[in-house]
């Protein structure tokens, strides 16, 4: 199976298992009560796979992954490995000057693959600018994500092709778009759900609070998936909140749950639970995926100025890919051949991404004036004509030489 064919494939049905209706709503409340604050001891969170790769039981969320097949487990592993490989390639391309900037997802693969694979084809995703793993799950060609980072467009993909909205750079704004979209889904009487991604930093934005208010008031079928990766560039989560983020939901009147963001199974199960609540008309849910940004905020950032190596090292032990590999090996769900094949597939993906990016042409100069308006605008027409005349004046000068 080639990388191209699988990457372009849309998710027909979310990975894991069939639905486990109406379980779980009660459980989240109890998790909320016992959880410590944002500092100090390890917070209580939903976990199905320990950092050591041991499967642990959870009466509430087990049903959502109960009949996951070994093939599906390998699929989740493959998704995470390929996403990480793509991400590393993009970082390299930035270092080589092929991209202007890159925002790495290193460390957040489980949160993104778990939640992304929980979505259905007819669900709609509103990402930040770091959801490369979710894009992968939605079937967006990863090279499409690189246009804006190379500077050839400001987004450029058709959001409706994969129900994956454009990356949103101003943090938190997209939570309102997701809420409005979900209000529309409800008006249409559809049983689709919407998922909005944001981070711990964005949780401080007024738009996020307003999206909580609107979604609660209108009972909109939306899941707020907050990847708390502990750092908003240089500011730790303590600079954003005095309570664990998932507890914010309570004040708005809907459930919040904290999940181990480095546990792909738990992220899959909890997101499926939340999406099914939305489908059943039970309204919004806040999922806080407790994870860690292993790399820099972007390629322009220098985390050595604000955080200690020991912190990163402590999170390396909780690596999302490592723990699933341990589990796959221990339960004989994957053999050496699988890992070797995946290694080769990863390299092929890296090579393809490299080649596509290097061949990506600069846009036509007149692209400046394209799509400013859907119905046209006299000033844009006038300025395009002026620009054309200006450009043409150089052509004449060149011919004269």
């Amino acid at each position, binding site marked *: 199976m080639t990388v191209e064919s699988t990457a372009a494939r849309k998710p027909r049905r979310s990975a894991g298992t069939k639905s486990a209706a109406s379980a779980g709503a009660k459980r989240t409340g109890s998790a909320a009560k016992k959880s410590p604050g944002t500092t100090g001891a390890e917070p209580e969170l939903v976990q199905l796979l320990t950092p050591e790769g041991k499967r642990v039981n959870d009466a509430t969320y087990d049903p959502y992954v109960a009949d996951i097949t070994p093939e599906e487990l390998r699929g989740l592993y493959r998704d995470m490995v390929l996403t990480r490989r793509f991400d590393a390639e993009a970082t390299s391309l930035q270092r080589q000057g092929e991209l202007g900037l890159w925002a790495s997802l290193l460390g957040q693969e489980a949160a993104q693959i778990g939640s992304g694979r929980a979505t259905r084809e007819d669900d709609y995703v509103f990402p930040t600018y770091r959801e490369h793993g979710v894009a992968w799950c939605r079937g967006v060609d990863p090279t499409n994500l690189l246009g804006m980072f190379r500077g050839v*467009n*400001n*987004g*450029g*993909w*058709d*959001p*409706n092709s994969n129900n994956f*909205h*454009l990356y*949103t750079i*101003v943090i938190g*704004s997209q*939570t*309102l*778009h*997701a*809420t*409005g*979209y*979900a*209000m*529309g*889904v409800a*008006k*249409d009487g559809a049983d689709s759900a919407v998922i909005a991604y944001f981070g711990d930093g964005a949780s401080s934005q*007024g*738009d996020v609070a*307003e*999206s909580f*208010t*609107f979604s609660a*008031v209108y009972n909109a079928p939306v899941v707020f998936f907050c990847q708390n990766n502990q750092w908003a560039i240089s500011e730790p989560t303590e600079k954003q909140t005095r309570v664990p983020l998932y507890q914010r939901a309570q004040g708005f009147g809907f459930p919040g749950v904290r999940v181990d963001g480095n546990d792909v199974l738990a992220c899959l199960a909890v997101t499926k639970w939340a999406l099914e609540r939305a489908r059943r008309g039970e309204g919004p849910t806040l999922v806080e995926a407790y994870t860690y940004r292993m790399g820099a905020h972007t390629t322009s950032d220098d985390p050595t100025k604000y955080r200690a190596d020991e912190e990163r090292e402590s999170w390396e032990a909780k690596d999302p890919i490592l723990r699933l590999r341990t589990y796959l090996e221990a339960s004989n769900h994957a053999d050496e051949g699988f890992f070797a094949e995946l290694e080769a597939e990863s390299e092929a993906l890296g090579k393809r991404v490299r080649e596509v990016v290097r061949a990506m042409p600069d846009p036509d100069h007149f692209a400046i004036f*394209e*799509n*400013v*308006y*859907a*119905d046209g*605008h*006299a*000033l*844009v027409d006038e300025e395009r004509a002026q620009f054309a005349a200006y450009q043409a004046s150089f052509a004449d000068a060149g011919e004269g030489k």
Partner: protein
Amino acid sequence: MAAEKMALAKAINESLRTALDADPKVLIMGEDVGKLGGVFRVTDGLQKDFGEDRVIDTPLAESGIVGTAIGLALRGYRPVVEIQFDGFVFPAYDQIVTQLAKMHARALGKIKLPVVIRIPYGGGIGAVEHHSESPEALFAHVAGLKVVSPSNASDAYWMMQQAIQSDDPVIFFEPKRRYWDKSEVTKDAIPSPLHKARVVREGADLTLAAYGPMVKVCLEAAAAAQEEGKSIEVLDLRSMSPIDFDSVQASVEKTRRLVVVHEAPVFLGTGAEIAARITERCFYHLEAPVLRVGGYHAPYPPARLEEEYLPGLDRVLDAVDRSLAY
């Protein structure tokens, strides 16, 4: 269908009703737009007839109103949102400027954002702070938005129809002090294009260009000038983005003098842009520099001072005299 005389607010109400009737995707959203019918009653009776699902009372959060309207538009709806007063739009400014205006271009044209944002604007009603502002230039400056303002009931009806049909976001500034002014509306007329200016009074000596609430003031000024033997042409611009410069140019080539009038501050305002463009287009026709009459570079004053701040008949005539003196 015969012409019907109605107030400007009622014309917008009828236009919204027509749109709600014609297209199930049209939604009305805003604060107090439901049972109350809006603080100016522009949406009066619409929720009763079309239901809470289509005429939606929202939480009091402007960014939330516009942000969710964007999401609804992405889902295929055509939301018409009301911002209760001009001075309340700024919590939504980020969603309008950063998200709504740019999204079509960011998607290389693959998605459309047919959102209308209605804003009652301007002064002259003796209101408290933040209820009398004219922020149209702040929106006209942003590529991706269209900005219009009707001056009379007929335009209000038709321009709202056209704004809702537009696949681009439209900021629809409603001259609140003219809400109760009545004029004739013909619902089966063929309307002018949304962004086309209109000569509302022919003249030979000078052009007064205005929009929204100032058109009436300019017509009064032109009538007063007539008594002094001056022939003033009045142009209702109707649209601040795009501006119909061709119509302004045609008028100025005839009259050779131009005064632009708006309530908004003069500095970097609509009039400044018109002055610059018309100077370029009509340099050899102009007998006088383009003059501007408008608000000052100061916060909108308390109500007891607003008559001094707002352009009135005498300030417009003063500018007319100064222009004719060149």
